[in-house]
């Protein structure tokens, strides 16, 4: 029975959480803290704080951790599956349809029309990240790190993983 509850607790935020993982955090909190009482508000905020300081997608990290706490390994699997699979399956079906007709002019037109929207969405995310950085470490550090990483990644084609490790080192030592 606990697994059914875990399923519901992460299925609902996954299916109504528009705007990616971060947007579904309050929904997860509502289920986990308010509805099922698995964690207190304090515990949830600690889990969230640690989750935010670790890499990787946040919603599945919360699902995996809380699922594990509540129902062990099987609980973690159920929580991640409930969070991810419904929209993933829908996505696979829809993209398969799209792929089947990818040479049709209408589908090509979809690609052309949608591209500017993607540019705007990514542009807004870009702004969010730079603004957050400006608030955290100020404008000069932000510009310095952005310029250096631009040169390394885009000009000299160094894999981002190395640049991110370098940024860690720099941040740990100087920020």
């Amino acid at each position, binding site marked *: 029975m606990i697994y059914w509850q875990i399923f519901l607790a992460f299925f609902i935020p996954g299916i109504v959480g528009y705007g990616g993982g971060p947007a579904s955090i309050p929904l997860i909190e509502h289920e986990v803290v308010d509805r099922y009482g698995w964690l207190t508000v304090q515990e949830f905020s600690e889990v969230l704080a640690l989750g935010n300081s670790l890499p990787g997608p946040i919603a599945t990290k919360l699902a995996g951790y809380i699922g594990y706490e509540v129902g062990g390994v099987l609980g973690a699997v159920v929580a991640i599956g409930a969070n991810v699979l419904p*929209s993933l399956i829908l*996505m696979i079906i829809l993209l398969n349809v799209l792929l089947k007709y990818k040479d049709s002019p209408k589908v090509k037109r979809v690609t*052309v029309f949608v591209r*500017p929207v993607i540019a705007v969405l990514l542009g807004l995310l870009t702004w969010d990240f730079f603004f957050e950085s400006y608030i955290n470490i100020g404008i000069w550090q932000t510009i310095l790190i952005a310029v250096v990483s631009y040169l390394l990644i885009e000009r000299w084609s160094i894999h981002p993983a190395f640049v991110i490790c370098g940024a860690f080192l720099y941040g740990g030592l100087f920020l």
Partner: protein
Amino acid sequence: MKLQLEIFLAFFRVGIFGYGGGPASIPLVYKEVVDRYKWLDADEFGDIIALGNTLPGPIITKLAGYIGYRISGFPGMVNALVASNVPTILLMILLMKSISSIKQFDWVGGMIAAVVPVVGMMMAALTWQFFSKAKQNLGWLKSIIFCALVFFLIHFVRIHPAFIIAALVVFAFTKKDARKETAESKEGTGT
């Protein structure tokens, strides 16, 4: 087997180096999937992002799951999901067990703060990539107007991007044939 290993490594790196939640990892997925392994081209990646944004739920796991599925079916999907999620979840369980208070973790703040501009820069590069793709098809003026309009709708009118993308898809499918041909000829000359 080699392919499964590559899928695992690609999404392991995405999961372990993606700081700032799912959206921050989009440029990393692009680097791995389009630039490094060339499993998809930039257009397909754009379509996947568009649909991923239109459907609910976490974006990176949707990308990982779909791309894994696309490359090598169900095993690829499970592989990509595991690679992008499990390592950090294990880290999280381990740390929550061993650390009594999150406050001991303050020094990590500086390290992560330095990664944020790197992510911003990669996101900017990807933004430019998609904008210049749009520019190839629609020309400078049209794509700037188009982008400005979309920006206005999303940022000021606060319409969810899912609705805009859905509306554009419907529009693309129902548009009259005469205008379709001009769109096609533009695409032809542009590329």
